[in-house]
């Protein structure tokens, strides 16, 4: 056996050169490709992670925006409903007030009409009563009623205070109003009795007013003494009206 040192040396050199060649043409490129792929993969994973984070953030933002829109819409809807309700209530109240006012107005109109009709009826009734009383009175003797009514007038005058009788006596020209014309004797007797009740009385005038129906009335410029059926009817009518007013107030 013999070792060929040249072959040994050449083979050692060959292997060293082959190590360099394979490192240059095999291991370095392949390792570089692996490293590049790993780097790209890491970059892709990082990008994917970033994209995922961005997508999640965008999703959260969109969700928050959607929630905000929903809340805003709900608030606007609530506000609109509240305004509609307020407007409805206002219109309803206004309509109620207007209706009540119109109802009250209509009721007042009806009451006024009823009152007017009642007044008219009462007046008509008073006129009718006067006419009926006048018709009935014409069946009685005029002297009897005249004396009785004049006596009653004198009693009323005599119940007046002295100052008022004095003022009445001086209240010229004093008119004695009767429903029918009196004859001269009756007029003289009435004047005489009146002068007795009212000393210093100036000569009175006699005036006829059929509306009195029956009785006497003394009309002066400043005073008035009534003792006639007309006055009594007016008094009754006034009392009726006063009762009606009192009923309405009550």
């Amino acid at each position, binding site marked *: *056996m*013999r*070792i*060929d*040192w*040249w*072959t*040994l*040396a*050449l*083979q*050692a050199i*060959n*292997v*060293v*050169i*082959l*190590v*360099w*060649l*394979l*490192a240059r*043409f*095999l*291991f*370095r*490129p*392949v*390792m*570089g*490709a*692996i*490293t*590049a*792929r*790993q780097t*790209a993969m890491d970059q892709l994973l990082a990008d994917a992670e970033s994209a995922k984070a961005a997508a999640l953030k965008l999703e959260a933002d969109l969700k928050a925006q959607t929630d905000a829109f929903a809340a805003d819409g709900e608030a606007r809807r609530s506000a609109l409903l509240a305004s509609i309700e307020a407007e409805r209530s206002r219109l309803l109240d206004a309509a109620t007030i207007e209706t009540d006012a119109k109802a009250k107005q209509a009721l007042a109109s009806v009451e006024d009409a009823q009152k007017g009709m009642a007044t008219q009826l009462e007046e008509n009734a008073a006129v009718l009563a006067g006419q009926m009383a006048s018709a009935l009175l014409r069946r009685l003797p005029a002297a009897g009623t005249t004396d009785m009514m004049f006596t009653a007038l004198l009693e009323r005058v005599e119940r007046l205070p002295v100052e008022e009788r004095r003022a009445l006596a001086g209240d010229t020209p004093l008119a004695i109003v009767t429903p029918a014309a009196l004859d001269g004797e009756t007029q003289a007797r009435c004047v005489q009795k009146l002068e007795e009740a009212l000393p210093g009385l100036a000569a009175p005038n006699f005036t006829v007013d059929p509306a009195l129906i029956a009785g006497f009335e003394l009309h002066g410029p400043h005073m008035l003494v009534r003792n006639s059926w007309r006055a009594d009817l007016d008094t009754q009518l006034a009392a009726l009206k006063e009762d009606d007013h009192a009923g309405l107030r009550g």
Partner: protein
Amino acid sequence: MKFASPLESHILFTIGPVPISQPVVTTWGIMAVLTIGCWLLTRRLGLRPTRTQAALELVVEVIARQIRETMDAEPRPYLPLIGTLFIFLLVANWSSLLPGVEPPTAALETDAALALIVFGATLWFGVRALGARGYLRSFAQPSILLVPLNLVELFTRSFSLMVRLFGNVMSGVFMIGVVLSLAGLLVPIPLMALEMLTGAVQAYIFGALAMVFIGSAISEANPSPKAPNHEVSS
């Protein structure tokens, strides 16, 4: 039929005073094939690997993972040496399948050159990792009494590396040649398949032992083992 002695080199030609033997020429051919092949295969590597690129990456990653698991170190500095040894030995051992080609690893000079390179690499990486003093001090571990034994081991294990490879490959080639001369054309085929297996196993064993030797030389510099699944590209 007369067989040439496998223990003798056959000089094909000379370049000046330098005799060029057949194993050297075969090695040049293997170098050319590997270099051109690697250049062709790695011209267009991209992020989207083709099948070829995927196969290349698989081979490189397997070697790198083996380095990491055996040496418990980052494989990048040792990958060209260990990878080249494995690939060259595999191709050289299998080159005997080609008619008329005798594997260069069947020559003692080639195996000696490979063992010599592993020996030098062990020293180089050991000194680089521990420093000259540290590496020399490692021979006194665990006891200074073991310095002669460690020194002897340094040479004998490289020698055994050479002899193991030479014996296995040479015997396979020689046996196939004997059987082929005796039994005809098709009979040695099972032996050739066995020779393929032997060649692959020997290439793996040579590379693994080279990793073990270098790893033991640098082990003092790597007290804490790294994670076994550490990625090649990291």
